């Protein structure tokens, strides 16, 4: 291997499945300096190489896996990598983030960016053993669930890490995800894109090393950030013990926990679900991702009752919500079982739970003839939840419609259900009701991949912030807050560390980690990093605008604008979206249609000819 840039694997691996062509190219200097890695790389490559109008499940779509410079290093929580493609669920930009150990292994094989194009004639898996790369026949494992797939490939290739799809990805279900070593590239249907390319899995074993620019400075920076994380109130004391559901009680108390498809204020047994009962009845072990001291993940086991013996990794806060309160269900065992099944089939658990809750409301309102489902699908029916997850995973019965996502389901069910199909741009809403923290409403409406809580996370600032400048129920300062977060989170998604490290550290500490690792002058300045973050967010915006998106897509479901919150703490609030959106476009330097102006593009160094005016 040639002299490697510190912090980077050094290579771009491009695989054309139609031609069985495999090429390894050095990673370009300009790409590093301008876009850093991860989401940054994805934004540049996807904008340049995927023209508008491509069908997401056609062989013309591209799917990327990108590491950040910090991925696979000594930096705390440096487990993360990014999947990017055009989403078959939304038809727009997708980037999906994953922890665990797959990204780091790709990095140890020297790969910063994996580009997959075309479509294989028969099922294959990609095998990467350092520079020894090949496409292997996968007909004998096609149809395997993700656990069987990973087990089989681990046996064949000891020590390797696997990213794979399950039956749902193979069946091109739009909410199918990619599973990788127990974690997921969850949202937006990346699994269906791999399925459409006949690519069952990526198997990687890397034995190369990652070099460091300044050994002493980097190790010092790592020591400081580890120490800081161990002291932080966020990552110490609560998250390691209670998992990602450590926020459950506070979110519920603040009136931000959505119940029964965002319309309920309570459900039977709801006092049985919180971070304490999860710890007491489910959690067995703490699991970490690569290089992580927080260990938020859990190995859980159901010890009694109807679901005795059920195991799984999780449940995460989002899945506790999506199969719990979203469906009016208080049976913790069933929640773990549902999450296990999503992992088994390879389904996005947020979208799956959201659409099941939607179906339950449709059933309650008698919008679906009883025999079309085949069983009672009332809110709170845990048997129905489990059956529906299986039907979605197998693409059976009404599961086929639900697997297309809640927007499409509402389109077909009709009867006014469009008003309570909880999605933005086709991506299902996660576990925060923005009527209780309206900044999240703006975050959902302006997220580049559809309703997402990970582009800007304003909930804590709005509710816990003690400076009293922000009120969770009003529009003031939300535009500014959302923009700042989106730009910074674009950097986080480009450098390869976990969002939970961000909550315990400050931006200067993260800048120092990046700079001492890479030695790149541009990365020593937080101000410069923030402009790169702004550039990345504008580029994904332009990608979407090129697909035809305008202001009329920056919306929220009818329920959040027109129906008052049912929670006491939210004081009958609705989301003042228009007001926040106007201010947001202004702060962003976008025109009234939400399209970046020429002036803004010039300022950021973006040359997007289609938009010059």
């Amino acid at each position, binding site marked *: 291997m040639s002299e490697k840039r510190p912090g980077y694997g050094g290579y771009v691996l491009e695989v054309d499945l139609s031609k069985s062509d495999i090429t390894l190219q050095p990673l370009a200097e300009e790409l590093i300096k301008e876009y850093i890695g991860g989401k940054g790389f994805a934004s540049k490559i996807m904008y340049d190489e995927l023209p508008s109008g491509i069908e997401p499940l056609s062989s013309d779509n591209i799917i990327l896996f990108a590491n950040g410079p910090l991925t696979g*290093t*000594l930096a705390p929580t440096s487990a993360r990598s990014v999947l990017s493609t055009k989403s078959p669920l939304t038809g727009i930009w997708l980037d999906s983030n994953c922890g665990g150990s797959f990204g780091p292994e790709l990095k*140890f094989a020297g790969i910063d960016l994996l580009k997959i194009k075309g479509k294989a004639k028969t099922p294959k898996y990609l095998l990467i053993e350092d520079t020894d790369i090949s496409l292997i026949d996968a007909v004998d494992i096609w149809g395997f669930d993700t656990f069987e797939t990973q087990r089989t490939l681990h046996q064949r290739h000891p020590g390797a890490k696997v990213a794979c799809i399950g039956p749902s990805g193979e069946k091109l279900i739009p909410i199918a995800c990619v599973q990788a070593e127990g974690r997921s590239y969850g949202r937006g249907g990346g699994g269906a894109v791999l399925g459409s390319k006949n690519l069952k899995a990526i198997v990687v074993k890397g034995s190369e*090393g990652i070099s460091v620019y300044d*050994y002493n400075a980097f190790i010092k920076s790592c020591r400081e950030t580890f120490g800081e994380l161990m002291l932080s109130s966020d990552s110490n004391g609560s998250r390691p013990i209670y998992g990602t559901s450590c926020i459950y009680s506070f979110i519920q108390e603040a009136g931000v926990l959505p119940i029964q498809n965002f319309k309920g204020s309570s459900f039977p047994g709801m006092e049985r679900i919180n971070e304490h009962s999860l710890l007491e009845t489910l959690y067995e*072990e703490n699991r970490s991702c690569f290089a992580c001291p927080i260990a938020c993940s859990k190995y859980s086991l159901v010890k009694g009752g109807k679901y005795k013996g059920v195991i799984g990794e999780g449940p995460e806060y989002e899945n506790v919500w999506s199969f719990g309160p979203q469906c009016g269900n208080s049976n913790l065992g069933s929640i773990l079982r549902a999450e296990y099944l999503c992992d088994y089939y390879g389904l996005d658990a947020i979208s799956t739970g959201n659409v099941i809750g939607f179906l339950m409301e449709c059933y309650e309102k008698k919008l679906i003839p009883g025999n079309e489902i085949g069983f009672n699908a009332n809110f709170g029916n845990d048997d129905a939840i489990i059956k529906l997850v299986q039907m979605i995973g197998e693409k059976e019965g009404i599961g086929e419609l639900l697997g297309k996502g809640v927007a499409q389901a509402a389109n077909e069910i009709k009867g006014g259900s469009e008003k309570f199909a909880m999605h933005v741009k086709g991506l299902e809403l996660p576990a925060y009701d923005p009527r209780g923290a309206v900044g999240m409403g703006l975050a959902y409406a302006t997220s580049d991949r559809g309703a997402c809580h990970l582009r800007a996370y304003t909930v804590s600032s709005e509710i816990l912030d003690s400076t009293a400048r922000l009120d969770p129920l009003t529009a003031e300062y939300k535009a500014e807050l959302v923009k700042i977060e989106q730009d910074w989170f674009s950097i986080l998604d480009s450098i390869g560390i976990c969002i939970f490290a961000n909550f315990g550290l400050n931006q200067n500490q993260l800048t120092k980690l990046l700079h001492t690792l890479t030695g790149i002058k541009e990365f020593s300045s937080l101000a410069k990093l923030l402009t790169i973050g702004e550039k990345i967010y504008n580029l994904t915006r332009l990608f979407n605008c090129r697909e035809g998106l305008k202001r009329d897509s920056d919306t929220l479901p009818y329920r959040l604008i027109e129906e008052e919150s049912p929670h006491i703490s939210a004081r009958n609030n609705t989301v003042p979206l228009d007001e926040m959106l106007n201010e947001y476009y202004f702060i962003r330097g976008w025109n009234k249609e939400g399209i970046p102006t020429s002036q803004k593009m010039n300022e950021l160094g973006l040359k997007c000819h289609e938009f010059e005016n």
Partner: protein
Amino acid sequence: MLKYDKELCSGCRLCEIICSFNRFQIIAPRQSFIQYVDNWPQVGFVDFCRQCKGRKCIDACPQDDALFVNEHSMVELNYATCTKCLECSEICPFGELPVNGGYPLFCDTCTGEYSCVEWCPTRALSRGDE
């Protein structure tokens, strides 16, 4: 010698990361003298030489001088005469030994520095009695 309490381990692999970083100034976990083996969805365990006094590995080694006790009273590998048969790993009562390039790796506690103990966030790794 290095001690390990599996009950405390969360599988973060920081021991792997710092081992290679400390030894070679690069991050190359596969070259580390301590290796994590996962057991998803449960947490797995780490393999490493405990530098035990039993030293069955030396007895099992078919070569005369591939494995020996060095001046720090630790088992050490002579890479020149090792035939990579891995009988030492096979006989090890604690499990398997990490292997790199076919050679078994014998943890030497970074000659008393115990880097992995410093970086283990859960204290699963600790210093044993000398």
